[in-house]
């Protein structure tokens, strides 16, 4: 059993999400509809993208503490420049992605701790966001709004988008050759370097991918909320780390699962709704969310331990 679970690490995240979903439907049967599910998971789409962004960084043994402010900055740029003068907006977003890639290269080349660099960068992003949008406002580009409110047949947009994100990142990170090499950087950077790979460039690629998904997260967030504010996504930093871990990822060793990360993000989004349905006062909600997180991680630890003693 333990060995089975360790080989299929994805099962525990799926199980946690199913249990939470079942509990939610039990408490609020009306949520069990096209419209209800879309409402439940709507805000999960940007969280899922942010989680994937965080996963790219954790894949190469680093951690990104600036992701929340970065997504906020992207949201501000999207609600202002991208709406008013699309070309300039696209250029700014592309520059942000390149900055992220550069950050990865610098972290590797100077052997800096990512946790410090990204913490410092979070203030830069936060300051820029305030500079772009000093007070809440702006508006979403119409096409983005239309994209986020599209009603596909059979499954709601939120679910379709999550599946799409999971599929694309799975192909990119798990199946493709370059994704395998990127995970190898997390597993044993020295052996990758010895095989003739430029590790600095690989790290830049991982950070660049993280920036790309961070940009997607900010854009989809604006598409949902229709306006932005400099603090709109601050909690994404910790949510995304929690999502990666919930999804079966590890802090070090290049052990990540894109599908798991998306599921983890959905679980986190659902946990918030579930707690509202329980009529829990918002004061307690963050604490309760933490409790759910601890519960799932404990379960994982127990399984991992059992596997070590039996396997």
């Amino acid at each position, binding site marked *: 059993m333990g060995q089975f679970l360790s080989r299929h690490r994805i099962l525990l995240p799926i199980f946690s999400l199913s249990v939470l979903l079942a509990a939610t439907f039990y408490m609020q049967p009306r949520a069990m509809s096209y419209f209800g599910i879309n409402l439940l998971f709507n805000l999960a789409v940007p969280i899922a993208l942010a989680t994937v962004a965080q996963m790219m960084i954790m894949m190469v043994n680093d951690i990104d503490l600036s992701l929340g402010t970065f997504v906020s900055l992207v949201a501000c740029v999207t609600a202002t420049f991208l709406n008013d003068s699309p070309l300039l907006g696209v250029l700014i977003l592309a520059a942000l992605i390149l900055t992220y890639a550069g950050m990865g290269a610098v972290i590797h080349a100077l052997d800096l701790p990512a946790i410090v660099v990204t913490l410092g960068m979070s203030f830069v992003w936060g300051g820029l966001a305030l500079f772009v949008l000093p007070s809440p406002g702006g508006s979403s580009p119409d096409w983005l709004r239309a994209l986020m409110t599209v009603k596909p047949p059979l499954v709601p947009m939120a679910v379709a988008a999550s599946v799409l994100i999971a599929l694309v990142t799975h192909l990119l990170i798990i199946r493709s050759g370059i994704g*395998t090499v990127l*995970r*190898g950087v997390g597993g044993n950077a020295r052996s990758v370097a010895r095989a003739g790979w430029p590790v600095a460039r690989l790290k830049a690629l991982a950070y660049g991918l993280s920036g790309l998904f961070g940009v997607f997260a900010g854009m989809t967030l604006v598409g949902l909320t229709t306006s932005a504010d400099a603090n709109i996504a601050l909690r994404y930093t910790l949510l995304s780390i929690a999502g990666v871990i919930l999804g079966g990822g590890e802090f070090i060793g290049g*052990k990540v699962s894109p599908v798991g990360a998306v599921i983890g993000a959905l679980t986190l989004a659902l946990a918030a709704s579930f707690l509202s349905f329980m009529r829990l006062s918002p004061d307690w909600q963050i604490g309760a969310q933490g409790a759910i997180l601890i519960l799932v991680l404990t379960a994982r630890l127990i399984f991992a331990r059992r596997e070590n003693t039996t396997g």
Partner: protein
Amino acid sequence: MQQSAFENDAPIVALTEVVKHFGAVRALDGVDLEIRPGECLGLVGHNGAGKSTLVNVVNGGVSPTAGTVAFPASGAPEALSAGVRSVFQELSLCPNLTVAENLRISHSGLRGPGWRRPARAEIRQSLDAVFPGHGIDANATVDTLSIAERQMVEIAIGFAPRGTEARLVILDEPTSSLDAGIAEQLLRHIRHFCESGGAVIFISHMLGEVFDVASRILVMKDGKVVADRTVGGFTRQGLVDAMGHVATDERQDPRGKAHAFGKEVVHTSQGLSARRGEVVGLSGLAGHGQARALARLYLDATSSWRPTGKPRMVFVAGDRTRDGILPLWSILRNASISILSETAKWGLVDRDAETSAAAEWKRRIGIRTEDVTNPVLSLSGGNQQKVLFARALASAAPVVVMDDPMRGVDVGTKQDVYAIIRAEAANGRTFLWYSTETEEVCRCDRVFVFRNGEISAELTGADITEERILEASFEMQEA
């Protein structure tokens, strides 16, 4: 193409007057070397003699300070495209990837959709060729494999064609974590590989293997080549002398006199026991539960919530990067961590006691460094291992648990450590010593042989022979 390379006999790699400095240290001091197709070069020398640096110059890992490295046979500009492959002593696979994915890391020709199938086929083929009957799944994640299996995978990746072909494979202590049967398979494959026109650089501290497989032996000492002859030109004794160590083979039998051991200090439900002043060996094929038995014993004895003041046991790790060395600390700190609580005053570290203990053990065990405050990673592997011995022996703990501690340690160091172990045992310390080298186990007072996680035999006195140990390791498997 292989054949033509064989016939025109151009060297695969040619080094001329290669010098390499690391700061003030001359790691290589003017080395000339040519390796031709069909040769198996045994490279020997004690730790710090410059073997690793030489290998790294050949495979392009470091560029020489002076001199040239050329690849005449292939005409390639650098080692990777010249077909030079390295299998390193410290396991260097990506543990989070599968066996086949690890091949992908070093085989950039595998690309495009569907690269997994050829990757699996290639690694499977290579594993089958080197280690018939290996039983390793190409889809298994590396961290689910045992150390021996990982080493096998690494060797198989080294010999895999990977788009071009392997012309020169460098094997650095390839058998250190393999048991005798698997090691023999490897040696057989090396011979076969060289007969068909490949070349191998074989580094090993097990001189028997070197004599067995090498066609030519290169002896290094202090960054220089001190002898370079065909294998027939050496005797075992001559080789040891050339390396610059005192003759080792006349093994004075420490078990000669009947020891009076003290009372039993260790006893486990598994049947493992040890008395005061005894050196107890754990043997058997690699990976048959010896390391786990020691780990369980040690953790049971030391994992208490309440600090007990005096430690009952100390541990010497064999896998030093995983559970030995504290890589960011100095040599001094690495060695003294075991005595901190014993010497502490009011909970504060006694710096003087720390310094004097480190200085004493640097002298007693011969750690090769100018200054013990240097970072521990500045030492060579064998010397790092000495630091771990110093750490364990400096503490007052009556029981020392050793998990294959001599992995990759040179002959001279081994002799020093054997002597220290004997001296400490005479002072009443107990040693539990797991080793993959039968010769080491034969130095023990009592030996437990493990098979499939259980003790299959307990040998004492004159019964401790290689034959009896092998018998007990295999016995039931044949039935």
